[in-house]
């Protein structure tokens, strides 16, 4: 148990840039020494993405569960949250003091634009996974690679997604995302 705890505290403190950054660290700590089979590890990642909740937290919980059952899951998820707990306790106090400072407001406005650019990258990654049936291990390096992606486009997914977006943009009432996801799951039975 102590080993699980230390593993995940270590992972948490190294995971700059969020949940996905935990994947290579956990790979190094758990798969390379042979604690977890590589195939199992990839299944865990897929399931962490498909289940509700933050991907990194789910992955940590899952790895903890496979190592030490329910107690392992509990220890792992608490350990990986400790860096957040400490970091926020410190940073939130500083932020409350400076947040109405004029310079700070200017800096935050620029930061928000920068974050928008980074969010676009995350969305593009998801688009690649959900809209194309790409062969295993295909990555784009050149512009011609991107064009060849078009051969693998999944049209029913494209149409479904377009409908979803149009509905979200133009419907008067805003629904919670969970509703769209349930509808998507049901339609998925018939479409894919």
């Amino acid at each position, binding site marked *: 148990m102590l080993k699980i705890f230390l593993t995940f505290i270590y992972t*948490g403190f190294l*995971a*700059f*840039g969020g*949940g996905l950054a935990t994947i290579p660290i956990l790979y190094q700590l758990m798969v390379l020494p042979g604690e977890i089979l590589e195939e199992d590890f990839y*299944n865990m990642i897929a*399931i962490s*993405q498909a*289940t*509700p*909740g*933050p991907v990194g*937290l*789910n992955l*940590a*919980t*899952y790895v903890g569960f496979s190592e030490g059952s*329910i107690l392992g899951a509990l220890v792992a*998820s*608490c350990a*990986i*949250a*400790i*860096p*957040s707990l400490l*970091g*926020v*306790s410190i*940073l939130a106090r500083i932020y409350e003091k400076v947040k109405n400072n004029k310079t700070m407001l*200017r*800096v*935050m406005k*620029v*930061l928000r*634009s*920068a*974050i*928008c*650019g*980074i*969010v676009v*990258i*995350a*969305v593009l990654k*998801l*688009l690649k996974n959900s809209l194309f049936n790409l062969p295993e291990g295909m990555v784009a390096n050149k512009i011609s690679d991107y064009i060849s992606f078009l051969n693998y486009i999944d049209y029913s997914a494209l149409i*479904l*997604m377009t409908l*979803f*977006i149009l509905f*979200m943009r133009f419907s008067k009432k805003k629904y919670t*995302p*969970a509703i769209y*996801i349930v509808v*998507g*799951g*049901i339609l*998925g*039975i018939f479409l*894919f």
Partner: protein
Amino acid sequence: MDNALEKKSFKKELKESLDLFLVFIKVGFLAFGGGLAILRVLEQELCEKRNYLSKEEMLDYYILSQLIPGIIIVSSSCFIGYKVKKQRGIFIALLGVIIPSIAVIVVVALLLDKLIAYKITTSILKGMSVAVTAVLIDINIDLIRNNVNNIVYFIVFVLSFISMRFFNVSIVFIVLASIMIGLFYKEKEIRSEVLKDNNNVKEDK
């Protein structure tokens, strides 16, 4: 009299804390699709329904969370908890985020190994992933429209996208560079921007 008042405010405090906790639990079970989808649901629950904090603050917390190690949404939740209920809020939010994750993963780990063999499971997951992506595109359009509203912000937006996507620049550097730009760039030096800003202010009022 005083005692009764104290008791009442304690009761109110407890009720608010419980409410915050339940929001996180609810979001934890409902928010498929990772980070931003969770943020969107939290925004609806906490900004629109309850007015605990503004959408800009929510985005700021998301940015600040990039600066500390750990899982971003866990950190963002802690920030929100702090905003609403100070140090105690951090623990409330943390528990609210962790409990659904443990519950879901334990159930799924026991069941899904068997379910994944059926084709219907992958079909459902595929349909869900399409919906999640659609939700994220919708959020992204709103984010860009609300925040990237002049040429300098647009340049920052494009540069941060290009440098991270094509040159693998670490997010820490992008944040530092943005801070530098923020320190030196004053919106009011550009006259047309002042006019535009004034218009925006009027519209807001």
